[in-house]
């Protein structure tokens, strides 16, 4: 379905997108951002689910089970810590002098 050059195009465009989106992020957000991008690759969960859905032998099922556990940990853990960090970033209304 996604084959050959179409896949390459997706790969290239997504690579540039990632680079551009991140390049404008201020240093103060680097840790939450790394955590946020860590969360985004938690999408591996859907792949692990599909792999488990078509696993047949015991070995395959066991490996896929571990894969789904790990992927769910990646997605949920990544979300929780990122949200916790970003939730703390507050502006000061008392100090109206903005950065320039």
């Amino acid at each position, binding site marked *: 379905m*996604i084959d050959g050059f179409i*896949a390459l195009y*997706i790969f290239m465009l*997504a690579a540039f997108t*990632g*680079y551009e*989106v*991140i390049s404008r992020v*201020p*240093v103060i*957000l*680097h*840790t*939450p951002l790394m955590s*946020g*991008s*860590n969360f*985004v*690759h*938690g*999408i*591996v*969960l*859907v*792949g*692990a*689910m*599909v*792999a*488990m*859905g*078509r*696993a*047949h032998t015991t070995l*395959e*099922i066991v*490996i896929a*089970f571990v*894969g*789904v556990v*790990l*992927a*769910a*940990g*990646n*997605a949920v*853990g*990544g*979300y*929780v*810590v990122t*949200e916790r*960090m*970003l939730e*703390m*970033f*507050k502006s*000061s209304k008392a*100090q109206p002098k*903005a950065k320039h």
Partner: protein
Amino acid sequence: MPIGAQSLIQASYFVAAGLFIFGLKRMSSPVTARAGIVWAGVGMLVATLITFLWPEMHNYVLMTVAIAIGGIVAWISGKRVAMTDMPQMIALYNGMGGGAAGAIAAVELFAGEAHGIAQLSLGVLGGIIGAVSFAGSLIAFGKLQGLIKRSFRFRGQNYVNLLILVITVLVGAMIVLHGGENMSDHVTMLFVLALVLGFTMTLPIGGADMPVVISLYNALTGLAVAFEGFVLDNAAMIIAGTVVGSAGTLLTQLMARAMNRSLANVLFSGFGESAAAAGSGPAGTLKAIETSDVAVMLGFSQKVIIVPGYGMAVAQAQHKVWELAQALIARGVTVKFAIHPVAGRMPGHMNVLLAEAGVPYDLIYDEGEINSEFETADVALIIGANDVVNPVARTDKSSPIYGMPILNADKAKNVIVIKRGQGAGFSGIENALFYLDHTRMLYGDGQAKAAELVQAVKQL
């Protein structure tokens, strides 16, 4: 196969991919960052739920159990982890993602589901990268958590690692060339080798370099996810994985640059916790000062720049430091926080710790924004920072930190350093700043001293 389900799944993946990019974009400003992660979370939730509709799947019960186990454990650990321990937690969650990508590759290869040279190659490659990222991230977690105390190094280590890499790739190539059928032994060998490589690559790297390593593994996991996305024909995985792969690579470069290290240097040489460089110590003496004198100096200043380092977070002093800043602001003093990109244990980590204490982000300036302002500051107050304010980085070519961008705290009219005792910084380098004529040392625990300063300033 019902066409409706397939369309719904693809549509949900399309939406999820869009929300991930939109979410990351929103995270580029502190004002919208919170909303950004929520949008990305919505995308993830939709994609995960719709995946249950995937046609012709088995093992639904086990699948749900697996999601519940991983999800609940991660939820609880993520809610409980202290902000100071954030770097190793990110390493751990990232390693889990890498492990999951490796597991997908293993299942597909054992089942012989991957066909054709392109799919097989990407599957094998994604599997190797995922397993390396998994093993490496676990080591990074162990090191930052203090479970692994020393670095393991021996002569020719890089050659041994290179050899393992070459053998791993050769085994992978054999799997591809044999069309992926009945290659169970080779697949097992491939993953054992890749895991060993992840361990042996990461063990020699010192704790100080771990943020760069974690960032690199974050990018690698993204790449592994993208490659497995090709194998599974899953556009959401390809896009999300690639975006993270390229964003993570950029982030890794930014971090390495801020630490004045090249990526190759981090990976292939062990500076992270190597012994202190020899060479002559700075001239002059350390001059101590009393709390009350510091309070007077701060209280009657026009402008104070506070330079916090990881030592402040270790002493849990950030709340008291913010109280001190508020007391000074109430007296009409201009207070700014200056943060070095590598303050804390990861770029941006210090900002998180200050945010936790309630410091508004618009009082926090990075090195590029504030360095020219030190000259007009009456006092630079250094709390738990060391190497990032060491002026030898500008002057002494023989110093290991020469060339590292630093905060020019030495340019302030007065420098006060709150420090537990005498001693060198994380890199083991003596700090010339402490010996300058206009520098005074306030010895003691960061939290206790900050608390005393708050009281003293309020009584002025």
